């Protein structure tokens, strides 16, 4: 099964992401030509448990991955031989889930004798912006607000970045999910909180902005607790859910936007990007748009399907890695956590 792989610039990447509860497969030609980008969400599979059950997620990935691969190849109108290299998210996330995607990816690459690239899922999120907006000017400040992580990443060049801010407890997305749950909404809470924030003004309610004036790290567990006490104090009384949730989300947005702009100014970046599931919030996008414009800093946000977990962003980062000749061996390992 040997074939001259396509030139690095026009090569076709097969990318797989199974880091959490979504099974994602993409085929990308060059840096930006998406031939296929498919994601199978497992949300309904975990609904009865009120959260993601890791063992169930791993099982579902193995069930979903082969039909998705078949469909992606069919959508792209290529066969296995048309794949020039293989990329896979090997951290961070649920280790059992990562192992499924990683083993499949490694085996495809090994069988076809193609290069393999292990991708940091968090590093890949901002590449949803490179995918749709083209080359962005370095240095950049990325806010990655994905399920389990809220991070500020200062990127000086491709493969050269530093985490300059992170949540010291709950991620913003987790906090939003938990507050949505307090109001009886199912996981994930982001879409319903976004809708309530768009439809309602905060009214008389106000919530704390944890660590707002303090450095670049985030803290959201206190905000979640504040909402818990807010509801307890009003037990038995009618609560206007829309304004309360809207006021809560104002606090979340305030912290995210303020810290991201502070980081952008501190590091003198040329642009800001926002990515991750929470970036799909129209309310948050609008707020970032206003504040970035006031600050005179260009802002890039991907369309909603590329905010949430997807393999196209993984493929986009992998394209830069492939062009730079940065490949991995068959002994690539998976990791649940980001490197310390």
């Amino acid at each position, binding site marked *: *099964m040997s074939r001259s792989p396509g030139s690095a610039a026009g090569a076709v990447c097969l990318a797989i992401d199974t880091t959490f509860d979504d099974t994602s497969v993409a085929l990308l030609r060059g840096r930006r030509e998406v031939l296929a980008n498919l994601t199978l969400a497992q949300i309904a599979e975990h609904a009865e448990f009120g959260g993601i*059950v890791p*063992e169930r997620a791993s099982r579902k990935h193995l069930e979903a991955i082969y039909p998705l691969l078949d469909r992606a190849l069919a959508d792209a109108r290529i066969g296995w031989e048309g794949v020039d290299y293989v990329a896979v998210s090997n951290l961070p996330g649920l280790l059992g889930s990562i192992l499924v995607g990683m083993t499949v990816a490694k085996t495809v690459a090994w069988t076809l004798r193609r290069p393999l690239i292990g991708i940091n899922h968090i590093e890949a999120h901002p590449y949803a912006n490179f995918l749709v907006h083209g080359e962005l000017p370095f240095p950049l400040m990325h806010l990655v607000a994905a399920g389990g992580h809220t991070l500020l990443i200062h990127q000086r060049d491709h493969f050269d970045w530093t985490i300059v801010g992170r949540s010291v407890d709950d991620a913003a997305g987790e906090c939003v999910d938990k507050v949505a749950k307090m109001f009886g909404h199912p996981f994930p809470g982001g879409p319903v909180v976004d809708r309530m924030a768009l439809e309602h003004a905060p009214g008389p309610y106000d919530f704390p902005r944890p660590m707002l004036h303090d450095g670049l790290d985030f803290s959201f567990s206190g905000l979640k607790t504040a909402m818990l006490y807010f509801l307890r104090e009003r037990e038995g009384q009618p609560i206007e859910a829309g304004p309360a949730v809207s006021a809560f989300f104002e606090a979340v947005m305030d912290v995210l936007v303020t810290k991201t702009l502070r980081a952008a100014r501190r590091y003198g970046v040329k642009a800001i990007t926002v990515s991750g599931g929470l970036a799909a919030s129209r309310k948050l996008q609008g707020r970032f748009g206003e504040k970035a414009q006031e600050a005179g800093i260009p802002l890039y946000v991907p369309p909603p399907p590329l905010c949430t977990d997807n393999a196209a962003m993984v493929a986009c980062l992998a394209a830069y890695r492939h062009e730079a000749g940065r490949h991995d061996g068959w002994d690539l390992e998976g990791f649940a956590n980001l490197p310390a």
Partner: protein
Amino acid sequence: MTHALAIDTTSDYLSLGVLRAGRIAANHYALCGTAIARTILPRIEELLAGAELEPAHLDVLIVNRGPGSFTGTRIGMSVALTLGRVLGKPVVGVDALSVLAAQADPAYTDPFYTILNCVRDEAYTARFHRRRGRIEPLSGIRLTTLAEAAAQAGRAPCLVRRFDPLPPAPADTDGLAPVPLRYGQPDALCMMEVGLPLYLDNAHGPFRTPTPLYLKSEAFRTWRPAGGAAS
């Protein structure tokens, strides 16, 4: 003549075997633990190279589909199913109890029990005999406790496998009658013995894609320590 690769990652042992032109060319059975995901492809590469085979030469993949370690089983299944998919070759699934039963001496034809103790006191058990040279199940696989499995076997011969990290065997299994063995370990020779006939009897297919045999729900709500059957 058949070229085959057998893969078993259901325990802490990485078990691989290569059949070249119908004859065993390589057999690898080594304690690997959590390194299986990192090690499996380099080992397969070595074994195939030693047998002077390329992946594309393989006619069939044989994989142990469990029960056993959930994560381990998925690694082996992922490798086998992906190889089958990319190469366009069939994948034959065998279950862990049949592989265990294939350790028995070919001359031994009486019914016997197999007991697989994977974790704590939980045990998978099934009854087999050898007929016309082949291992045949006389029962389905049941999830029970080690003590109950031992009690069920009574005086009947038993083949017991306990995964390595477990503490020393409890007294429950002390009195069990042994089955005469041909193979000292449930390695790829056992897998080939069980899996190859499933391929050769049906070489033109179609083949049903094997799925992992978990025998325990992911929420573990149906597991009853008193000895009820798994979901």
